[in-house]
């Protein structure tokens, strides 16, 4: 769009002297700057400066000691981090957690969105109900689920035991802790994804479905050949965002397990938090933060490049 307006303006201004046109453009630019500054300042002060200083801390030996001397140590932290097997172990857990939550959320939310999109009775009520987990803060969700998972008095084990199945120590057992936490992550993530998918489904025209139905396509084939291709950009965006959010999530797991048992749910943000606020090595912790950002960017760029290539192929 911007290129279109530019060419039109160029066409209009072409006969005029070049000097005057340059002057007008400059004046416009100045006006734009004045309008942008008020919006830019808060971003600069509250986002960019803290972000840059956080990144910079990663190259120092800063600690939280009183009047601590901060020295620039170059890549020292990163070299140390490279050999830190506990950090990379936690990184692996983070990938499993974020990947599993993003994928399972997508599948569950797709089902829910299809259900809400079909013409059922009480549609308005069910759509509101589906949003409830979204309205709850992560800490509250975590506390509620900790009660549900409680090995002695939780309703989950109560139901299992009434069927004669022995109860499971969900959050305390080494094999069930991570899956149990992932279930909570999915439950908390469903509404957001559902709403976005639902919006996408409603933008797909009903005529296409009708035409396909007339041609004899069943519900599954219509979903596969009409709904899914139509939703593709949304699915891609939502999954990518979910992955980033979950990889960086903190409150949910902190309240549920605090990274336990035995470090089995120690996702990278928790690990970084411990390094910063238990071990008081904020320089080293900032280096971890830098590495996490780069890692996420790398993973996502692989995904992005792949997606762009596919859409290009589809178009050509």
């Amino acid at each position, binding site marked *: 769009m911007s290129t279109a307006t530019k060419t039109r303006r160029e066409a209009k201004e072409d006969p005029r002297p070049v000097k005057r046109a340059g002057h007008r453009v400059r004046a416009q630019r*100045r006006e734009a*700057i*004045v309008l942008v*500054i*008020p919006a830019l*300042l808060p971003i600069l*002060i509250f986002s960019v400066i803290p972000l840059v200083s956080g990144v910079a801390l990663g190259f120092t030996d800063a*600690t*939280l*000691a*009183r*009047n*601590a001397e901060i020295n620039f140590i170059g890549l020292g932290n990163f070299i140390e981090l490279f050999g830190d097997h*506990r950090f990379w172990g936690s990184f692996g857990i983070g990938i499993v957690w974020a990947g599993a939550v993003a994928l399972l959320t997508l599948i569950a939310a797709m089902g829910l969105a299809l259900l809400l999109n079909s013409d059922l009775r009480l549609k308005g009520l069910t759509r509101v109900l589906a949003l409830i987990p979204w309205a709850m803060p992560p800490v509250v969700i975590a506390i509620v689920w900790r009660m549900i998972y409680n*090995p*002695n*008095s939780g309703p989950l084990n109560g139901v299992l035991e009434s069927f004669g199945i022995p109860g499971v*120590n969900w*959050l*305390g*057992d*080494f094999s069930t802790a991570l899956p149990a936490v992932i279930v909570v992550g999915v439950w908390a993530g469903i509404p957001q994804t559902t709403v976005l998918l639902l919006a996408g489904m409603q933008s797909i025209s009903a005529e296409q479905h009708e035409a396909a139905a007339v041609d004899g396509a069943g519900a599954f084939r219509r979903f596969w050949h009409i709904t899914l291709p139509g939703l593709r950009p949304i699915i891609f965006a939502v999954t990518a965002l979910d992955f980033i959010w979950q990889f960086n999530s903190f409150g949910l797991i902190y309240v549920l397990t605090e*990274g*336990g*048992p*035995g*470090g089995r749910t*120690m996702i990278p943000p928790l690990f970084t938090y*411990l*390094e910063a*606020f*238990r*071990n*008081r090595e904020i320089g080293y912790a900032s280096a971890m933060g830098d590495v996490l950002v780069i890692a996420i960017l790398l993973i996502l760029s692989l995904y992005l490049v792949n997606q762009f290539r596919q859409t290009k192929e589809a178009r050509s």
Partner: protein
Amino acid sequence: MKRIRGFGAVAVAGAVALALTGCQQGSSSGGSESGEGDAVTLQFQSLSDQPATQEAVKTIVDKWNADNDDVQVEIVQAGWDGTYDKLITQFAGGTAPDIIHYEASSIASFASDGYLADLTDYIDADLKSDISEGVWDSVTRDGEIIAYPSTLQSYMVFANADLLEAAGVEVPSGDTMTWEELQEIAKATTTGGNYGLGWGLASPTATMMSLALGYDGGFFDGEGTEASIEVGDAELAVPELIHEMAYTDKSIEPTSLTQSGSDVLASFYGGKVAMTVQGSYQAANIAKDAPEGFNWVALPPLEGSAGAIQAANPQTYSVNIDSEHVEESAEFLNFFMNGENLASIAYADALIPSSDSARAEVETMAADEPAWTQVLASGNGLEGPPFLKVEKYAEWKDTVATPAYQQYLADQITSEELSAQLSDGWTDING
């Protein structure tokens, strides 16, 4: 164009000024600015979270405020959970209160970071001689006393007397009880779906470090950053015994090992476990919360091969080095720690007071309560543990020891692997 630049400059300057005043507010020393007249207000962050103890602390502070118009103390109530993280942000942000309540092993890292005032010259001479050298030693760093030690916790075994009787076990009545006795009683009382012992070991390190002293397991040798670690048979004796009880005898309820102490109390009240190991302070909670007719007793202190010894890791009251009123804060603490006051706090919390006069006071207050006899008896075996002198202990505890013990208690690793994780982790951290 000039005007625009000027506008931009003004906007930037305004924002910077705003940001700077924001910082300034943060870095004033914990709201201890003088109020009306010359009255000084001290902020006192108290962690005592049991209702009776809160009441006791409030009574003492009210008494002080009534007698001292020029130095007023304001209680800031906080809880034990997450205090370390809270304090570190408060100190780093310059908003820490004047008087800080915590415990010796965790306050050590704040002392080494230079946030705590040296109180050596302010401590009342009578109080100084009333508390044993060993306890003072636990709050001394590089020759500076950085806290007043107040009350001490020991680990005690509480038992459901009815269940013991039903299993034909006599309630032990000696001065101490060996670990073998505990193991036998636990085996005898494990019947049907019930277990002999419930032990909340979700955060196992403090318990393990303390009880290891009963087998002469000190873990650390040396002080400060020089300390070295040794995890041998003495250090592993207690975890191995718990492991044997849980997985060979099957007399410890396995779920309880992943729960907190207070979660396990529910199973104890419900008769699902016959005994439970808890901090002595739980005696106050059990007396208050146990269902009507619940027949409970406190068993004698646990004795290992080296005696009934546990770690003396007192609760502490320290003063923020950046406080404008270090002297006034210390004066208040001298008052706060006098025999009568300390006794009322210790009694409400079911903890052992550090000073002899407070201890005598508690003995008379609790003369007719049998559980208290055992609480005070367990206080005789409290010794200053080597880990209090180790600078990076808190770090090692949270990032190395706790996950390692959790894995061992869940039967995921062997005791050799536990030993290796504990010592290798220390080498990693201490560099």
